[in-house]
């Protein structure tokens, strides 16, 4: 029986939509995040498609594209991130996934998006792109800075871990201290608890690179992404000079790991080091590791490496689709710098 793809009508098919997501991507609480992720995004509602076999109600797969404003070569463009891609186990024969992947190109082919991009975290996610002859545009790596070794050693040695853990923590601290730089001139680092204001939009608009691609960080986007997220809480640190916002970092905390979701701003020679130092100082007693996800070519990589972060693994590949022979397609073929972090690849 043939397999086809059709758009999802979120108002009338919400239950079917949530059911197939929950069945095939069970680790996420889809109902709790649906309205926020699919409807309340300030860049617009998501597009979604069902793959079905035979009759339209026999749904066997689903995917979506989430609109995302991006700075592309210094110009603001509406792009889209592919996500929530799921196919029933009995239909993972590549054909349904190919149909769904092609459907995500529709808003691009119809001129509604400049390009769409996907960030498969593992090689299996690249199979449709390989079949379509689309190559990845860049890789995203996980960088990590160990803060403590207590938990690791306790798991291995039990009570005997106390002395080796103290020695290990001291060595790690000395290793980090050897990379320290004095805090940037007149920079004040502080926790930002209020909503993101227009000063963040101004900073975003002021920081342009002619050959780079990155997500827009408007106040509206930041508030939606980090203040209204129903599943996660974030901590924000700002770097200011005489009250003026120069840079900021967004952190997600778990019991052991601090993830730097975003680090963005001006004067990175000063602000990146100052923010990273502040993050280490703040969490070196309570957390085991600081991690970040950075694309190849991101200017942040150099700062993280100087701060003794280590490249640990490949976390994702970024694969973009623009309309063939379009101006955007030409721009992407010139190998621009993908300045991506968790801010662009996470949802």
């Amino acid at each position, binding site marked *: 029986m043939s397999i086809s793809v059709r758009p999802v009508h979120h108002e009338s098919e919400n239950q079917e939509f949530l059911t197939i997501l929950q069945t095939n991507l069970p680790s996420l609480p889809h109902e709790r995040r649906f309205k926020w992720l699919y409807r309340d995004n300030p860049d617009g509602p998501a597009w979604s498609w069902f793959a079905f076999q035979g009759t339209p109600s026999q749904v066997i797969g689903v995917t979506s594209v989430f609109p995302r404003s991006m700075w592309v070569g210094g110009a603001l463009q509406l792009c889209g991130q592919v996500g929530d891609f799921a196919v029933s186990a*009995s*239909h*993972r*024969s*590549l054909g349904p996934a190919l*149909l769904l992947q092609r459907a995500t190109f529709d808003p691009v082919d119809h001129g509604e998006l400049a390009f769409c991009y996907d960030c498969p975290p593992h090689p*299996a996610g690249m199979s449709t792109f390989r*079949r379509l002859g689309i190559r990845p545009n860049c890789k995203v790596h996980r960088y990590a800075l160990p803060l403590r070794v207590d938990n690791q050693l306790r798991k291995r040695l039990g009570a005997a871990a106390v002395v080796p853990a103290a020695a290990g923590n001291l060595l790690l601290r000395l290793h980090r201290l050897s990379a320290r730089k004095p805090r940037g001139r007149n920079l004040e680092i502080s926790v930002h608890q209020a909503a993101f204001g227009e000063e963040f939009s101004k900073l975003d608009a002021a920081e342009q690179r002619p050959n780079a691609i990155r997500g827009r960080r408007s106040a509206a986007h930041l508030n939606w992404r980090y203040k209204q997220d129903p599943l996660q809480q974030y901590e924000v640190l700002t770097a200011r000079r005489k009250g003026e916002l120069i840079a900021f970092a967004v952190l997600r905390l778990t019991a052991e790991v601090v993830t730097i979701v975003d680090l963005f701003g001006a004067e990175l020679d000063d602000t990146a080091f100052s923010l990273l130092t502040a993050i280490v100082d703040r969490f070196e007693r309570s957390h085991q590791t600081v991690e970040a996800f950075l694309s190849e070519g991101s200017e942040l990589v150099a700062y993280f490496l100087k701060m003794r972060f280590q490249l640990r693994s490949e976390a994702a590949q970024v694969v973009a689709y623009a309309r063939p022979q379009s101006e955007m397609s030409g721009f992407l073929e010139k190998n621009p710098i993908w300045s991506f972090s968790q801010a662009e690849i996470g949802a």
Partner: protein
Amino acid sequence: MNMAGNHLNAQIRKFILDKFPLARKQQIKDSDPLLESGVLDSLGVLDLVSFVEQEFSVHVADDELTPENFQTIDRIAAFIESKSGT
């Protein structure tokens, strides 16, 4: 099943057993589901399709990448037979 069919099944089975450790672990039979059991994921199907195209000189179109054609070793063999007219 004819001799050619038996030979096809054996070639496909050998490829799957060589390439996918889960197939060896589960000691799959020719009628066992490969997709639902997790023996093959989409990347595995891609590898299998490349093998089928090269080894049996058939072209597999995107709309032929369906569970009907790739669900079991028996079905893959039947699909190749239908494509090559043997």
